[in-house]
């Protein structure tokens, strides 16, 4: 009897320690495996280390940018062969806790930092061109973790923002974030235009529960990884939702490729804090057409390359050469694919709106 009570309390303790956003196995069936090979070839200068490889992105020359949580949050640039080129933003005010890096069509580098609530546009040579959001003032001292409901969302202030993207006109889209639950649209000069969602989490279309990743396609639609709701939402250019995808597990991050034939990649990353068995059901990345037709999947959870230990971000500028950043393995892998020859499979589409 005593033994049984102990077992029960251990179970309760584990349940309490589980991450607040649970992980879900994808419900899509019969998705073909896409074969790939992986290389981890980033050459760091002597004495330098990557921390959690939270953000990865490439520019038009194939250079790789890694925004990572080292002792400080830092942004490194490598060439396409993996040679270290330079560091950007060393000691910069807007860097505290990395969340995303993206490169726009002009090769400007944008960082999203959830420790400063700042999004920064750097020129290709590393100069600050524009900042969005602002950092809470240090002079007020270390603030206690906020209790109670989220504060009302403000036009120009983020709350642990997660990602950034642009439409063809250069309008800026931000997913915001851990303590707001919205997508915000600014014009190219940084002026507020619209938002979907609010500070409050919600389940309806157009509401979010931890919008964790975002990309904008060439039609100007915003694809949002709505992580806490285990779905992707697709919003039109005015942020009206018109589609959701609900059968790909938990929505950690989304990437849309470039080129004539564009693909979209979705990651059902295995969670931080794994239960026995989680590795068997999560950790894969899906490849789909922009109409939602899934063409295949690849990868699995695990510590050893080419396995993934919590994929946080995918760069898919070239859909046959992905760059993937992982949280818990402090690693960036380049995944190389043969041009696809698998037969497409139609997925269950979400509710149309």
């Amino acid at each position, binding site marked *: 009897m005593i033994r049984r009570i102990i077992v029960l309390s251990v179970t309760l303790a584990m349940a309490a320690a589980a991450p607040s956003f649970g992980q879900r196995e994808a419900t899509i069936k019969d998705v073909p495996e896409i074969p790939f090979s992986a290389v981890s070839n980033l050459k760091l200068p002597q004495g330098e280390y990557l921390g959690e490889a939270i953000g990865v992105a490439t520019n038009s020359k194939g250079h790789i940018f890694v925004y990572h949580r080292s002792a400080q949050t830092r942004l490194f640039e490598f060439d396409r062969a993996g040679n270290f080129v330079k560091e950007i933003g060393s*000691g910069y005010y*807007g860097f*505290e806790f990395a969340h995303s890096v993206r490169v726009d069509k002009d090769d400007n580098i944008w960082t999203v930092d959830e420790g400063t609530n700042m999004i920064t546009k750097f020129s290709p040579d590393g100069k600050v061109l524009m900042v969005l959001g602002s*950092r809470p003032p240090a002079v007020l*001292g270390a603030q206690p973790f906020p209790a109670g409901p989220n504060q009302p969302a403000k036009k120009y*202030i983020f709350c642990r923002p997660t990602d950034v993207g642009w439409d063809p006109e250069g309008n800026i889209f931000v997913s915001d974030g851990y303590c707001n639950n919205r997508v915000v649209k600014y014009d190219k000069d940084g002026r507020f235009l619209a938002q979907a969602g609010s500070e409050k989490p919600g389940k309806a279309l157009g509401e979010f529960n931890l919008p964790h990743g975002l990309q904008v396609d060439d039609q100007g639609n915003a694809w949002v990884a709505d992580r806490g709701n285990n779905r992707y939402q697709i919003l039109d250019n005015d942020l009206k939702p018109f589609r959701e995808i609900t059968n790909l597990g938990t929505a950690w991050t989304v990437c849309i490729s470039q080129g004539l034939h564009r693909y979209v990649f979705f990651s059902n990353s295995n969670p931080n804090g794994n239960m026995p068995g989680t590795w068997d059901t999560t950790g894969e990345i899906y490849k789909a057409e922009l109409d939602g037709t899934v063409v295949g999947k690849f990868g699995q959870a695990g510590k050893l390359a080419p396995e993934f230990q919590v994929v946080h971000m995918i760069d898919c500028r070239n859909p046959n050469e992905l760059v993937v950043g992982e949280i818990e393995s402090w690693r960036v892998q380049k995944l190389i694919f043969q041009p696809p020859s698998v037969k497409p499979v139609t997925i269950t589409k979400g509710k149309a709106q």
Partner: protein
Amino acid sequence: MTRTNGSVRVLFFAMWMTGSALIAQNLAPEIEFDSVANPLQLPPGLYLGEVGGVASDSRGDLFVYTRTGHPTISIGTSRPFAHGGSRLFEFDRNGKFIGEIGKNSYGFMVASQVRVDRDDNIWVVDEMTDMVIEFDPHGRVAMLLGRKAENVSVPARPARGGDGAGQPTDLFDRPTDVAWDSAGNIFVADGLGNCRVAKFDKNGKFVASWGKRGKAEGEFASVRGIAVDADGNVYVADGGNRRIQVFDNDGNFKTAFNNIGNAQAICMTNRPDQVLYVSNSNPSDDIDQDGEIYKMGLDGTILGKFGRAGKLLKEFGTVNAIDCRGRNTLYVGEIGNLRVQKLILH
């Protein structure tokens, strides 16, 4: 340079007398201006954060006091200690980087302001160490006012003295600015916590203090900036009450200018024909209101205005500092856009 004709001046004066602040703002003539692209060349690996202060010396060298990061809190024996967070950079008149002053200084945490006196000493005001630090032109510490708190509280307690009581001591609580009269007396804007002006003689001896939090004449919602004219009158930017208050050299209230919005940054040109530049700084969470800078006569006449809030050149993100040694060539330091703009007024 835009000049206002006499009749318009009279009209503005009449509106100021009748309190038609909004009309005065809207009727103020627009001053044409340009912003010089890339006015400062930072070496690779060096970045400006929020710019608390920008000031030039008599050679045209430029000093920028900037919040390059948040202070680091380390775990001490029984109390947490805070270090770093702000740096003071020097550039030449062409914007070429010269060097850094006060690197790793005990007194640098949250940049509030930098000013250069008539002898080219560089004065730094820090809002978190609560210190005013005078460096000589060689960058050596010449005089210190105030004292940094030994430790910080984690999590933060309400700021010490932050009730705006106007404590008449020689310690500060979130000071924001410093200025001098022609006798060398020192006036400290103190500031956001204590809401008063502190006066010291040229040797740093504390001699007077006036003001506390409030709305009445001689009271402040916040003491954001300070300037002293050739006659020793003291102009205090009382942004929270959306006014500038003018005092004589001993702190007796003389008048107030109520028509320039959230007066945050203030600069007075050198004599003769002194004018004031005052920023109606936008709040840090909104670029869709305020942001313009006013040019004023010392009688409160608005001579013109320029700019608006925003992120592009010629737009401003919460201006915290104006340097007007050049009279029509201004340097403007911004909190929101992490930059200094060099403005040419036409």
